[in-house]
């Protein structure tokens, strides 16, 4: 068959429906987001009370000149990193455990993990908050902490949110890695244990290298998710914590854009986040491609 006989636009014709949908649902909103970020655009402009004015990079200058933005950005990066590391550690450890236990406990663990996965973030956050409630929470009672308030200190509040984030995102890691381990030939593992390798040694020298492509994908997925965390912070620290100490970028953007109706400033934060995540995604795509070549 000779592909040259067909006109060059034929593939585009076939792609058109998908491209139209993608363009409408993805590109157009991003275009609007970028556009708004260059204007003075608050509620007064939206409802026509005042004319819209072009600000150039004014919103970005304001944003970058605000020390709170840098503080929030730093908190976001550190918090996301902690979440990713913890999620991966818990997810991988439980995946290995899944391969070691009998069918019934495995089923129980799977069901528990899937339950956590299926719980909506708002519900999960509320339940965790209740568990750690200073007055009625069972955790404080069990640990004998009295009426210690977890959401008051900056670190303890972040830690509480981290627990919830890990709880609701480790199942994805666990299931993916578990599937990966299942695909590893049994004889390799058998050979390793016959050679007297410890459990940790097998993971480090046999499983981890063989699972590398999966681990990379899972890591980058987690980076993107945890960088964009919103619901947990918003619900558990009541919109950003005492004096805004627990703000992360996404919640900060929401507070600017919707709570104070500064849509243009919120859009500028959105664009900054988009660029950061785009950089991460490019790395992700490159790795995916390399992985494709390897297979």
């Amino acid at each position, binding site marked *: 068959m000779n592909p040259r006989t067909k006109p060059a636009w034929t593939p585009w014709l076939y792609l058109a429906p998908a491209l139209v949908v993608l363009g409408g649902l993805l590109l157009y909103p991003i*275009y609007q987001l970028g556009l708004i970020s260059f*204007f003075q655009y608050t*509620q007064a402009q*939206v409802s*026509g*009370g005042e004319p819209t004015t072009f600000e150039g990079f004014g919103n970005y200058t304001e944003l970058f000149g605000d020390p709170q933005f840098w503080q929030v950005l730093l908190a976001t990066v550190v918090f996301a990193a902690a979440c990713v590391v913890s999620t991966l550690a818990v997810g991988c450890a439980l995946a290995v455990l899944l391969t070691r236990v009998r069918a019934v406990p495995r089923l129980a663990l799977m069901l528990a993990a899937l339950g956590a996965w299926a719980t909506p973030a708002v519900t999960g956050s509320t339940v965790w908050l209740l568990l750690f409630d200073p007055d009625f929470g069972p955790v404080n009672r069990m640990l004998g902490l009295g009426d210690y308030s977890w959401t*008051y200190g900056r670190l303890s509040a972040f830690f509480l949110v981290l627990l919830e984030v890990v709880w609701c995102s480790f199942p994805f890691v666990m299931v993916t890695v578990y599937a990966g381990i299942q695909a590893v030939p049994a004889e390799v593992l058998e050979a390793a244990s016959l050679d007297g390798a410890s459990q940790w040694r097998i993971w480090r020298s046999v499983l981890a290298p063989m699972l590398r492509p999966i681990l990379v994908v899972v890591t980058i997925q987690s980076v993107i998710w945890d960088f964009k965390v919103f619901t947990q912070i918003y619900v558990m620290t009541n919109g950003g914590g005492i*004096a*805004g100490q627990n703000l992360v970028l996404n919640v900060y953007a929401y507070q600017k854009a919707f709570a*104070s109706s500064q849509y243009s400033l919120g859009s500028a934060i959105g664009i900054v986040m988009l660029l950061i995540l785009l950089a991460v995604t490019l790395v992700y795509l490159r790795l995916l491609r390399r992985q494709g070549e390897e297979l």
Partner: protein
Amino acid sequence: MKLAPRLAVLLTALAVTACAPQTSNNSSSDKDEKTGTLRVWLFQEVGNKPKEKVVDSVVAAFEKAHKDTKVDIEYIPIDTRAQRVKAAFNDPDSAPDVMEYGNTDTAGYVKDGGLLDVTKEFGDWSEAKDTDPTAKQSVTVDDKIYGAPFYVGVRALYYRTDVFKELGLEVPKTMAELAETARKIRAAKPELYGLVVGGAYTYGAMPFIWANGGELATGKGGSYASAIDSAAAQKGIKAYTSLFSDDNCPAAKCAGMGGNDTITAFAAGKSGMAIGGDFSHTAVEAGKVKGKYAVVPLPGVASGSIAPAFAGGNNIGVLKSTSHRTLAVELMEQLTSKKTQASMFDAMGFLPTFADVRQQAAAEEPYVKPFAQTLAAGTKFVPASPAWAQIDSSLVLPTMFQEVISGKKDVAGASKEAATKMNDAFGSVG
């Protein structure tokens, strides 16, 4: 590859056709139809039935007086009102003709271009002359009037009569005594807060600033400057934030509380005193402390004085986009008339905005007395600037209180930062 030039054409086309984000054309409607349907949005209160009854009777009378006119009332939930109102301003076609709104939103809504200037009609209205001056101020922006006051709300001091009696305490007469009494309660009964306070309870904190001679901002008509970092205001901030300590209301629990949380704590019998509004009466009555509490005006700095309270409440206004201007203004007057406010007080306990109607109400219901006294002693209002909505929603003051309470900043530093943020907001709305 031919894609690049095509893409360029496409992008240029986009840029040419849509070089600015959408805005709605919310100009005032020139139409003034004398028949048809009037749409009204009122807030959905907890236990809304009595309110509906009063409104229904007003509507029935209105429809009877105006042939071929129908009034369509919709009750909107209070917690989604911000979105609903924004949507109404953005899309005049689905907007109501008349709506209820919180009085701190007046200046913001005027700036958004949503409210109709009714200065002339309000001036001509026979009942308007009895309107309380603070209530009138809450519908006034730049000497123009944008609605009619519907009810006022003020806060006063709730206290537990049983606890006071048991511990042999006197009702505090000054702010210093208030703090002292609070500590005594907590010391004798560690399971209670002395005076429950909240780091996010801005309207409960303001009387402390005002009583010490401080102001939120000074200025008039659009050009405000923050005064939150003045010496007097700092004294007030110090007085309020010093209540967040283990011997009254531990910072770890109270720093994050808002106004409703403090009332909930008091109603559940977890506090000796609380700062609550006349509108909190129903909630407290429904709580454990029913029959075991009383209310007095919040004491000021000097003995026997009353701390200036924040005059909250709601107004009813006409939207600029209405096509039934005359009818809508008339309905607004009917909904906020002396007669309606009197029945609304009987039904819902909303304090009337007319001094004479309020006096009558206080005579009927003794619980109104401390609130009426507080109103009579002089109340204060937030700056009538559109910037206030932004200052309020970006949590400038709660952040300031919380920074001091949690020890992140001292009073001078936190108030200076808050003043800068407020001035930025005042400046940006020009």
